[in-house]
């Protein structure tokens, strides 16, 4: 494959196509619009469909509808649109319909700084919708990683029947880097599990050994019901405690029993490190640079980059907290993932480095925190 000079948003669109995405519904918003533009151009020749909906609420609704119809589907947005999508993210979680939601974060709250980077939606991605539910959130820090994590987002959503959020930021989305995309046949693509039972026996929410029931598309002879209400194994509304509890347990179990597969992170120079810098997204680039500068000055510093933000890589961070004296968490917000690190490591072990004014956290700022 030849090397190309590519933007993060383009890599996202390309990753989606390789993963088998054949449906996109969205509403334009900076800094995510290129994803919609590219897919509107590329999807038809692949037999896919694009539609620009009237708003973000409708966009995610259409995506879920298309997924029920059997198409791998995604939408892309930024903060204000992501807020509008929350109710339907909950719907996808409740109904276990695979879909991918890209949020290219910008500085907020509200319309904030439309073209400036931020990482202010970490908690919204986890807790934005109402109620108790697990979620998977992935965050890339380079163009190449955006390609891979978009594929992974689709694979996870199909494998675990769950909405998956790709949490990007403006820097990664608009940055251009040299990438070499792998040939299509070398990319692992996962499709949702189908059933081999006859329609009368198909229960769309049955308990299975893997905790993920097969999902058959509408129109294939399996006539079943989907609802955002708590439902029994057939999908019919229920208020029975002996049906609600097992559902809750199963949707949490399908994520928590597979943490080994879902949790992805990178470590650098961790053994012997007294200080570890934990960072994700665009900030991780400054962080890695700062760590290398610090090590050149003979500081015992390691680097940890979670690619999976939610579920939070709790055990790995616990291990860091055990061996290191301090964990430095730089973020383009006033402390969001740091809260989670503090929960696991203890508040006195965590040093936050924050800014939320639309500017990147610089390596110098992080270096000061490492040395200070």
């Amino acid at each position: 494959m030849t090397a190309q000079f590519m933007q993060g948003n383009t890599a996202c669109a390309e990753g989606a196509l390789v993963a088998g995405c054949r449906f996109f519904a969205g509403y334009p918003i900076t800094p995510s619009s290129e994803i919609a533009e590219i897919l509107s151009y590329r999807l038809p020749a692949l037999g896919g469909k694009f539609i620009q909906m009237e708003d973000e609420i409708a966009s995610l609704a259409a995506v879920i509808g298309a997924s029920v119809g059997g198409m791998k589907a995604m939408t892309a947005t930024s903060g204000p649109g992501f807020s509008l999508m929350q109710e339907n993210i909950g719907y996808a979680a409740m109904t276990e319909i695979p879909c991918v939601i890209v949020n290219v974060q910008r500085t907020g709250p509200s319309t904030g700084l439309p073209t400036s980077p931020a990482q202010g939606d970490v908690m919204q991605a986890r807790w934005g919708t109402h109620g108790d539910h697990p979620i998977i959130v992935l965050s890339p820090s380079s163009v190449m990683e955006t390609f891979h994590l978009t594929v992974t987002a689709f694979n996870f959503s199909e494998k675990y029947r769950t909405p998956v959020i790709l949490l990007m930021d403006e820097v990664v989305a608009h940055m251009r880097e040299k990438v070499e995309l792998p040939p299509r046949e070398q990319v692992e693509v996962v499709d949702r599990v189908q059933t081999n039972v006859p329609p009368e026996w198909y229960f769309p929410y049955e308990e299975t050994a893997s905790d993920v029931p097969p999902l058959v598309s509408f129109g294939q002879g399996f006539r079943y019901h989907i609802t955002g209400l708590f439902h029994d194994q057939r999908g019919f509304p229920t208020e029975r405690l002996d049906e609600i509890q097992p559902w809750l347990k199963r949707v949490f179990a399908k994520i928590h029993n597979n943490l080994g597969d879902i949790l992805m992170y990178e470590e650098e120079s961790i053994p012997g490190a007294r200080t570890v810098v934990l960072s994700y997204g665009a900030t991780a680039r400054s962080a890695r640079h700062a760590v290398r500068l610090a090590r050149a000055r003979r500081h015992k510093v390691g680097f940890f980059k979670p690619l999976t933000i939610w579920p939070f890589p709790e055990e790995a961070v616990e291990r860091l907290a055990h061996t290191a004296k301090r964990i430095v968490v730089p973020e383009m917000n006033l402390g969001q993932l740091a809260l989670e690190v503090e929960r696991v490591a203890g508040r006195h072990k965590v040093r936050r480095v924050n800014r939320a004014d639309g500017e990147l956290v610089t390596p110098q700022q992080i270096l000061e925190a490492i040395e200070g």
Partner: protein
Amino acid sequence: MSTKLREEHEVYDYLRHSKKFPVMWCAGCGIGIVLGAIIRAIDRMGLDRDRVAMVSGIGCTGRMPVYVDFNTMHTTHGRALAFATGLKLARPDMYVLVVMGDGDALAIGGNHFIHAARRNMDLTAIVVNNNIYGMTGGQYSPTTPQHMRATTAPYGNIEPPFPLCELAKAAGASFVARSTVYHAKELDRLIEQAIARRGFSVVEAVSYCHTTYGRLNRLGTAVDMMRWLKENSVTLAQAEKMSPEERETKIVRGVLLDREGPGYVDLYEEIIRQARAAENG
């Protein structure tokens, strides 16, 4: 018993014979009549029920899909048309019916309603108009007539109502029709025509909510409200003979618009064909 039921009621065969009965609607509510009409229309058309999807939003009307043996989806309040849009694009071969209450379709879902009509999205929208929010207990809706009472309009509603059919026509629908739950047989024929028409078709099924709207406005029992629908509705032909003032006070029944024209689904298939041809050529 079941053979007799099956012979007497064509709907029997389409119901889900599981633990989900009796229905959750109040005794005497008109929503069940609309469901019956939808089933009769589908039965008469002989549609393959594997290719029928029923999508709803939230409300009393929104509970319809759970009872019928199609591909059914109960979505979020107001968003049924948007979900249905995605489903229809993924499965153009399916008949996608969208059932909504008036609040569902025109308040929270008003934007989706006008845009689905504008796109001429190939869907059949059936709006059960009971002039009120039934499920949440009788708050006023965008179709509550002026001066009528609701739990949130204790002094009488001061907002003018949305004319649902006029809105659908102006926004770009292909087919618009109206009838009432008193005219159950007429309703199923209109729904049949709506399903048969490609593009966005709307059927307003005028119903009532005797337990909230009826009680608050002292309109009597379900039977009284049903009788009112009978006495206060006219066919299109009858309406044409009336003065505009007189017509204003009546519910006009019949096909209010029927036009042909390409919609999003067909136009997009054409785009796919062109894009593929360009790719291969």
